């Protein structure tokens, strides 16, 4: 009988019409400015720079190694190395970026910069309402806009940030141990130097320095 399929379809649309009033599963729309979609932890949008502590300038983890600049597929990152050095996240003296700009009108959110960064300093943000009146200057983010605190990173990507923090804590502990060991060795060396021969103290120093240095690639 012609018309059976049509009637079946009509029933289906009627079911959906009524269903949209009762079932949240059918009516999935979110009324955007008032409600927001639940935050998904893995979500990524544009990169930002992580800093530790409270001072964005001092705590910035980035050491201006420019790997991300080289690896960025659309070449949207621009870094200028500083002339002087400052202590980095693990306390080692490093360069820092004098300029760090990301042109997010070019960026394609691929996250390769995050993958290649050996210092865990560049991460992906989740802010998506970035519309702007000025499509050139307004979408060129400078270091000041890019730098966001580690606490913020912990709120948006808790699992990942916890791992990073643990890694840093380990590194810091190692560094502290190293410093301590070095200091102790120095003390011992001095003590021994006062009493004993020089050659022995040099070997101990070499032993302590043989430990691996700095963040690993993940």
């Amino acid at each position, binding site marked *: 009988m012609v018309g059976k399929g049509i009637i079946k379809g009509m029933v289906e649309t009627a079911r959906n019409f009524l269903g949209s009033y009762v079932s949240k599963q*059918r009516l999935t729309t979110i009324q955007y400015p008032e409600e927001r979609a639940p935050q998904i932890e893995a979500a990524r949008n544009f990169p930002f720079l992580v800093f530790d502590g409270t001072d964005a300038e001092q705590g910035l983890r980035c050491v201006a190694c420019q790997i991300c600049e080289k*690896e*960025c*597929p659309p070449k949207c990152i621009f870094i200028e190395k500083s002339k002087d050095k400052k202590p980095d996240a693990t306390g080692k003296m490093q360069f820092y970026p004098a300029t760090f700009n990301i042109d997010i009108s070019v960026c394609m959110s691929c*996250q390769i910069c995050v993958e290649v960064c050996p210092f865990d300093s560049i991460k992906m943000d989740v802010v998506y309402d970035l519309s702007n009146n000025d499509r050139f200057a307004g979408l060129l983010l400078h270091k000041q806009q890019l730098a966001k605190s580690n606490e913020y990173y912990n709120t948006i990507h808790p699992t990942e940030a916890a791992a990073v923090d643990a890694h840093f804590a380990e590194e810091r502990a190692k560094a502290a141990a190293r410093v301590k060991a070095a200091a102790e060795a120095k003390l011992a060396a001095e003590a021994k130097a006062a009493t004993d021969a020089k050659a022995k103290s040099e070997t101990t120093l070499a032993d302590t320095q043989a430990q691996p240095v700095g963040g690993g690639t993940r």
Partner: protein
Amino acid sequence: MSDATNLTAQIDINTIPALGKEQLLELAMGPQHPSTHGVFRMNVVLDGERVMKLKPVFGYLHRNHEKIAESETYLGSMPYTDRLDYICSITNNWAYAIAVEKLAGIEVPERAEYLRVITGELTRLQNHACLLGFLMQDMGASGTPLMYAFREREKIMDLFEGLTGARMMCNYLRFGGCRVDTPAGWMDAARKVVAEFPRFLDEYENLLVGNEILMDRTQEVGILSKELAINAGISGPMARASGVDYDIRKVDHYSIYDRFNFRIPLGERGDVYDRYMIRFLEMRESIKILEQAMRDIPDGPIVDPKTKIRGFRPKPGEAYGRIESPKGELGFYLVSDGALNPYRYRVRPPSLINLTVLEDLCIGQNVADVVVILGSIDIVLGEVDR
């Protein structure tokens, strides 16, 4: 270089057999047209509403992806592959990853293979769902099936976002594995989505599969013969709708597809209805694969640790790797000269090659059929023009 060939897409009306030449109407469908699925143009010559001649015009979205990739590192091209067929980014990643893995001889750990199959089949689900919606939209069903399809696609995209961080541009696969492992609870969410998906298919079946208007519009329209389909390199569901028993998942045994129990639906007539139904049935088979994969997925590493992220240089040589993407055979051909970036990088776009037969399918049909036939070929202009 421009030899004596006629370089424009202008159609010489005098070549068309028709009663009165003055009755013919030349119509440029596109590049701004609601149902060319992007910026695509068809120069059509009509007699009344009958199509006498059709010439596709490409290149409005051309950005020379292949040239860009020649100056990128191997990894740097991965996010660009997302943008080829922007509806199914993961299968694009997959095809590229397979080509690079062949080129460099990289092994993929088992869990990564399972993850690839799961995400890949989810991609197939969302692509086919979208396609059915778009096809109905082209037929003038005022968006209802499309919205239902998008409602389901939204759930799959949420899954992708939870796993890869992005909804469409996933950039998920890496050479020798996947980028990240599943977060806690993701697999359960995915199981739930897959378990609920058949409900959508049933709903769709009720809404349209038995619909007389749909059958009238699609059956015996745009018939593609088996011989032409093979000769013209048609692949994927479009070829299988014409009865070509060729699914790369079964033929190449790539990844771990031979561990799963699934069937390949085959059409008889090769008309629009068959193309539509083959995709519909393929979704049910994909659900079967997903259920098995989610049941069997082992623990383990997700990426081959020997593969370098930076400074990846395959040995000189070449490789052609292909997979069964939702659109058809998606292949990547790479030539390496030992440098950081590929010497030659080529995408075999299924959408473009499936369009080879567009003119053959459309001649003699109505204008209204042209958009339906185009819709049933399932093109994405990002891939056609690259």
